[in-house]
């Protein structure tokens, strides 16, 4: 059961939004008596700050934005004064204005210490959230009122859902859940039919004898599995022409990305050229949360999905990428980069052709050397006055803005990058 907390209880700091902020510098979590979000907006162009919604009693995890409503999840444990707050909260935000306003929250009272992925179904009716450490692995909420999620279903996958992507296939909502390993269970991919959201039903389980699936990405009948050191695997679940279905997927091809640790993916459809050539793969290396990170963005050419190959990469020294969102109309990849903030990268055109000077020794094109970095925001090494250095978990491009979930500070609304 969840316990909704009404907005007024958690909005006291935002009531101070009309009060000018002092230059109080970074403070202890939860100890602020002023809201620095009120004056944090910056001028300038791409990825400038429009506003923020501050959360400092829990670590913020993933986000999803639909219309004027955003949802953020929470992670791990955070010491707030003498209290230890778990990552068992879903926050609901009104993002119509410049500064996101917290309007509701849902606490998963038992069975969750981290809520990871969050996503809204295409029809806007259902909110699906991954849960750890297990056995609770997936939560489903009814969004009849988008600002007041009501829990309708739970699914126990064994040892927790590390990530959960959703897609509507043949009119039925499905979830692709990366189930953690446990002492008595190997990691696996579970495909869950959410056609009846109150009764999630597992229809496929893919055991992983030698790796994990960290995240998935679904589009047009293809499922992309991020299998850590095994790399990216492309699976037909209805659109690959090999007869695959969600209940009986068929593998198409696989590529081991450089450096391993394949973490997340995005299949880019360019509406200008109708090209569907590239998949961007995030690599997550070891770091210390929320201070350091490592790992590049890898560009995989899937012109022949049976034989995908890596052709380019993007790297930020001293920082590592996490989740993606793409403004496909403008051809801009937004990559959450933890302590590196948010990176906007021009991904239009041919990414696999470059000059010798723009190539790495292994022949891959370096997008940074190709001048494809468009903008940087929330760079943790630069910081934001009045805030602890950001550590960005996720990004979502929606409604012409970029939203960034910052584990340390909360939710940011940024200007989109300019080409």
């Amino acid at each position: 059961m969840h316990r909704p907390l009404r907005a007024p209880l958690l909005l006291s700091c935002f009531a101070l939004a009309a009060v000018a902020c002092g230059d109080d510098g970074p403070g202890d979590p939860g100890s602020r008596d002023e809201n620095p979000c009120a004056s944090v907006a910056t001028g300038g162009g791409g990825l400038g700050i429009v506003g923020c919604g501050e959360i400092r009693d829990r670590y913020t995890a993933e986000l999803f934005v639909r219309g004027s409503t955003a949802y953020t999840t929470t992670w791990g444990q955070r010491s707030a004064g003498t209290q230890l707050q778990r990552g068992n909260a879903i926050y609901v935000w009104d993002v119509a204005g410049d500064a996101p306003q917290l309007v509701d929250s849902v606490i998963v009272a038992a069975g969750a210490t981290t809520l990871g992925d969050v996503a809204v179904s295409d029809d806007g009716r259902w909110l699906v959230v991954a849960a750890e450490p297990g056995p609770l692995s997936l939560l489903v909420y009814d969004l009849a009122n988008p600002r007041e999620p009501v829990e309708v279903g739970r699914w126990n996958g064994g040892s927790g859902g590390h990530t959960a992507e959703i897609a509507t296939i043949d009119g039925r909502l499905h979830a692709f859940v990366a189930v953690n390993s446990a002492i008595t269970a190997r990691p696996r991919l579970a495909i869950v039919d959410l056609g009846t959201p109150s009764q999630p039903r597992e229809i496929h389980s893919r055991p992983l004898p030698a790796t994990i699936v960290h995240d998935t990405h679904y589009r047009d009948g293809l499922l992309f599995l991020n299998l850590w050191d095994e790399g990216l695997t492309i699976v037909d679940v209805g659109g690959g022409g090999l007869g695959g279905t969600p209940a009986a997927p068929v593998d198409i091809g696989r590529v081991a990305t450089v450096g391993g640790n394949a973490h997340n993916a995005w299949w880019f459809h360019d509406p200008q050229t109708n090209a569907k050539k590239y998949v961007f793969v995030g690599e997550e290396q070891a770091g210390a949360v929320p201070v350091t990170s490592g790992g590049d963005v890898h560009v995989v050419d899937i012109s022949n999905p049976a034989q995908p190959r890596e052709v380019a990469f993007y790297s930020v020294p001293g920082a590592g990428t996490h989740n993606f969102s793409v403004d496909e109309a403008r051809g801009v990849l937004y990559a959450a980069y933890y302590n590196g903030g948010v990176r906007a990268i021009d991904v239009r055109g041919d990414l696999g052709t470059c000059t010798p000077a723009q190539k790495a020794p292994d022949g891959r094109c370096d997008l940074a050397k190709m001048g494809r970095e468009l903008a940087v925001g929330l760079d943790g090494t630069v910081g934001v006055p009045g805030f602890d250095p950001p550590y960005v978990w996720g990004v979502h491009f929606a409604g012409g803005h970029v939203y960034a979930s910052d584990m340390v500070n909360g939710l940011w609304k940024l200007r989109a990058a300019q080409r």
Partner: protein
Amino acid sequence: MHPSPHRTAVVAVAALTLAAPAAAQHDGHAPPVRDSSVRVAPVVWYVGATPVLTHATPTAGGRKLTEGYVAHPVAMLHAATPRGALSLQAMLNAEGLTLRRGELATGVFGEGYVDRRHPHAYLHEIVLTGATRAAGVHLSASAGRGFAPFGSDDPLVRPFTKFPVNHHHAQLLERLVAIGAVRVGAFTGEVGTFNGDEPLGPGAEPRWRRFGDSWATRLTWRPARAIAGLGALEVSGSFAAVRSPEDPDRVIGLDQRKWHAGARIERPTRVGALYALAEWARTTELDEGRPVFEYRSVLGEAALCGRRLHAALRLERTDRHEATRLEDLFRIPVPHDDVSIIGMTRWFTATMRLGTAPWSAGMLRATPFVEGSIASPQDLIPRAAFQSHGFYGSRQLWLLSTGIRLGVGAPHARMGRYGAATAPAGSHAGTHGGC
């Protein structure tokens, strides 16, 4: 089919039951060094346990806890052919029954437990050794489940009841091992291979297919004659390459490179046997061959075991990684969900122990004790998610324990070496530093 460890345990229990009690005597004095490989070695057994009451204030989550357990419920066996050509060393440990939730030990970590010591495997050790000697060269080959040739003695046979924080930096145990050892004069060399995975629980089988994926080597110097002022001296250095110890299926687990150096002395004094150990250890974790985290430890401990009273002191500075905790704040996920850490802490710990000399009642020996420690963690990564002061609510973390060590028979004097690598008889004062 793999042999079941439970079946092996049953066999070992039967052997312990049938064995004749032939308790070795440890008088706390270091006689002239003898050669253990040619002495007549009888069957030696021991059964013991330590009921203990512990108060922690504060510990994880800022809580104050008082708990009681039966710690170290063990049965030990050492059996050898008359000239030591073959020997068996075994130990069963029932902590999986008596310490399922772990033993309060703020700062200690390992095998999914944090701020509690984990229960050890039921089949802690069963190692068969073949040894020979030719032209002054002692050779041995050992195989079974037990200690890799790395680091210092198991804390179980050192003076304190509470384990040090550095247990997982300074010992590698409960592995499937194959070890070769050679001793020439004062020098001993060991090389061993083993499975990198740590036990997943007291009754869990090791990953048999992982045998041989890790290795370790140790060089030890023991002067043939006592050095003035130092008594019996032992100096060792060791290295281990361990594959994915915390992720048994090597899915995303980090590998480890471990280094250890230690010096150990024992000598008689006017008031009793003196034991001291100083050690340094370093563990580097690697992801895809790249070093990502490094942990260091320095530890010094000493015990003076008089005719009436025993006293011991341990000072330690050890680094520990921090991971997201489960709803039970003393546990973390095993295997981990991710490769990142949420912090790193350096533990400064001082532990003092006072006890009496053993009381004897027939075959039973009883040693009452009190043990107290103060630990102070320091955050090594500013702004990391884990901040010790916020988590514990204090910078001084106290542990106070009292209990009684009970035993029948003769425990292993030392643990962690086999065959030609064992200390020659008489060069040590006995179990628990002679206390």
